[in-house]
């Protein structure tokens, strides 16, 4: 994850540093052209010819816009090497495309743009460290999650059991992720039980039953069509009786625009009073990620996010989108089909991965 985005961001940063050099003087321009050519050659390997053409045009236009002022206005620019709004727009345009291509939602791109603009416009071009500013912008969006295990253990000293509700749209991977989280908790010496509160989808109960069997933990279940909130309530009662530390409640997938279903999840939250509400999103979701995260955050005030299917794509933009939309931390990333394929989200690591 993030591999592709990292590569592109790096290219953008180095390229625009070269661009800065261009403005400084005419002499350096000749020297400058060769690395640029190499850059486009590198791209040729990766992209098809049609795309290459567009990229070339883009580069050309960028080159032109960088070069023309130095040619036309000559010495005038020497006194005015400050980043103007228009120049910023030009510079950002390409970064915008890179971010969008990597699945960062439009809204989040706009927010990054705004924070960069505030910092950079009017500054002396020489003083501007693009990599640093971009890093700061993304850093301010991503949130470091609190220590998951510690949070639970601290809370257990006051009350027990610790209840976690999982919610998300259909097919996002709630049940699989719950099994992974259960496994993770067990590894950290916490006892776990599950609640099959997805009483709607065909075979959802059988699915979570198999996970419970595999992990040798208790599952509270009822018939299909029964009230999901009551399943959660029963699971908590069972956990209290049997001194189980953590209860994980699986809920049915629901589209965020279905009012009745969103009311249902509100009811589950109201009845079970969870200590943690987790929204499950998919790493492959595009602009809708923002809508989904926002809707679930609004109706249940989520504690954190888990992004599933992070192994599927190199693009990592969804992480930025959901963080920006909710202001809530990403707790884990789902990275595969096995129980161990659950990675604690680490902001520092993520930013390092971006090469910033």
């Amino acid at each position, binding site marked *: 994850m993030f591999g592709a985005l990292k590569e592109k961001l790096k290219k953008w940063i180095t390229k625009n540093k070269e661009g800065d050099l261009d403005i400084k003087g005419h002499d350096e321009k000749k020297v400058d052209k060769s690395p640029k050519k190499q850059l486009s050659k590198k791209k040729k390997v990766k992209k098809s010819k*049609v*795309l290459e053409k*567009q990229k070339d*045009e*883009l580069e050309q236009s960028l080159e032109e816009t960088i070069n023309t002022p130095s040619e036309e206005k000559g010495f005038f620019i020497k006194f005015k090497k400050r980043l103007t709004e228009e120049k910023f727009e030009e510079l950002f345009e390409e970064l915008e*495309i890179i971010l*969008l*291509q*990597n*699945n960062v*939602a*439009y809204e989040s791109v706009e927010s990054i743009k705004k924070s960069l603009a505030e910092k950079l416009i009017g500054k002396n071009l020489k003083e501007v460290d693009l990599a640093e500013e971009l890093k700061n912008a993304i850093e301010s969006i991503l949130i470091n999650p609190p220590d998951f295990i510690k949070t639970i253990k601290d809370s257990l000293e006051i009350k027990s059991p610790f209840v976690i509700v999982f919610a998300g*749209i*259909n*097919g*996002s*991977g709630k049940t*699989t992720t719950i099994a992974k989280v259960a496994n993770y908790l067990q590894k950290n010496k916490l006892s776990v039980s599950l609640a099959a509160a997805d009483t*709607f*989808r*065909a*075979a*959802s109960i*059988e*699915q*979570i*039953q*198999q*996970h419970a069997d*595999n992990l040798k933990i208790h599952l509270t279940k009822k018939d299909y069509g029964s009230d999901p909130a009551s399943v959660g309530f029963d699971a908590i009662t069972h956990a209290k009786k049997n001194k189980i530390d953590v209860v994980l409640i699986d809920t049915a997938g629901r*589209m*965020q*625009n*279905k009012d009745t279903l969103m009311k249902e999840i509100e009811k589950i939250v109201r009845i079970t009073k969870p200590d943690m509400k987790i929204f499950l999103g*998919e790493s*492959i*979701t*595009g*602009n*809708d*990620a923002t*809508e*989904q995260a926002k*809707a679930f955050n609004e109706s249940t005030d989520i504690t954190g996010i888990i992004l*599933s*299917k992070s*192994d*599927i*794509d190199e*693009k990592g*933009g*969804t992480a930025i989108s959901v963080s920006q939309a909710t202001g809530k931390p990403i707790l884990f990333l789902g990275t595969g*089909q096995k129980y161990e394929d659950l990675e604690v989200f680490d902001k520092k690591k993520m930013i390092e991965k971006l090469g910033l």
Partner: protein
Amino acid sequence: MVLDKLGSALKSGIKKISNAIFVDKKLIDGIIKDIQKSLIEADVNIELVFALSQKIKKLAYDETIKGIDKKEQLVKLIHDEITLLLGKEKQLKLPKKASLMFLGLYGAGKTTTIAKLGFYYAKRGRKVALLGLDTQRPAAMDQLEQLAKQTNLQAFIDKKEKDPLKIIKQYSKDLEKYDLVLIDTAGRDGLNKELIKEIEKLDKRLKPDYRILVMPADVGQTAKTQAEEFQKALSIDGVIVTRMDGTSKGGGALTACAETKAPVFFIGVGEQIHEIETFNPESFIQRLLGMGDLQALLEHVKSATDEKQTKRIEERLQEGKFTLLDLYSQLEQMNKMGSMDKLIGMIPGMSAAKVPKNVLAKQESKMKHWKNAISSMTEDEIENPEILEKQTSRIQRVSKGSGTTTTEIRELLKQYKMLKEMMGMQSGLAEGKIDQKMMQKMAKKFRGKVKF
């Protein structure tokens, strides 16, 4: 609705083109930005978005095409290109006996879609069997079994067997009795070589008549890569896009399909078993634009562009004649292009930020008063507003007749004089030859004199 934002962006773009007096760079750039934004928000592949923008620009900047021709061609271009983005319509025409294999990412909705489709075809008289080959996900077989029960279809499953090939062998005789076999496979990542190899093996053994890719509507820029990888491995015959009932715009999935030349046969529009629809890009676009067809769209352009009026103003400008009515109709046509603040934003050197918002609102209400005042004038006064200034009693009469103040009328006259003066410098405007410098010069003059 799916892509509704795109629809409104396109509609407003087309409206702007239709209503504009001159199709200039600023106007086109603004429209392109709007369309770009909505396409990107709908998850349409970025490269496609920029290719489309380039095409629009190329046509719009073409100096050899002018006036109404350019407008028509622009609208046609936008219409055609967007339709192209969504691909051609292709109905799934099944032979008497057919087998369909479904594949796709984890959680895309393969099993649910199979049950829906089974139900859809059973209602249309087919003898349908569902074959479960997802041996990976816990309870996948149970899910298919339960869905089959709900829909009264026959499901062939084996909850214990882990090798899909063995399940195929086990049921191959039974399946011959059915005329439509829908095959469920495990979810897989198109970029995972091992999983792709596995599906290739299944494909070889089963030789399905159709390979159907199932893709969720909210998938983002990943859509293209996934569609391409599956296409490369198996040659996909068609796609079913699921979760079209969410807030996602489906642009990623829909355009990825068009790009990989795999038609979208169906879209899933809900959780219930009957919630599946066929997909027709053409009618989809029509719904999006709220217009019957391209012809109707072009008619709209023609009617919105008052050719006579524009011509009259152009002639007047060239003759140097300019009446209050001309002033008014020009201001009005400018208004049609958008509100005053947008208009001011279009003039370089005169940003809307420099003009307080309530002033702009006032200006718009002033326009209404002016209209009333002009209606109260005699033809002579409209043709030669100078006489109003010479005989101020005329102003008083008009003000009484129209319920406006004399100040307002004087202001109108001032505007008129100023604009007439500007006309002298901008005779080039009529031929669309106006350049940046000229505009700035005009704006300077305009800014200096105009008093809101």
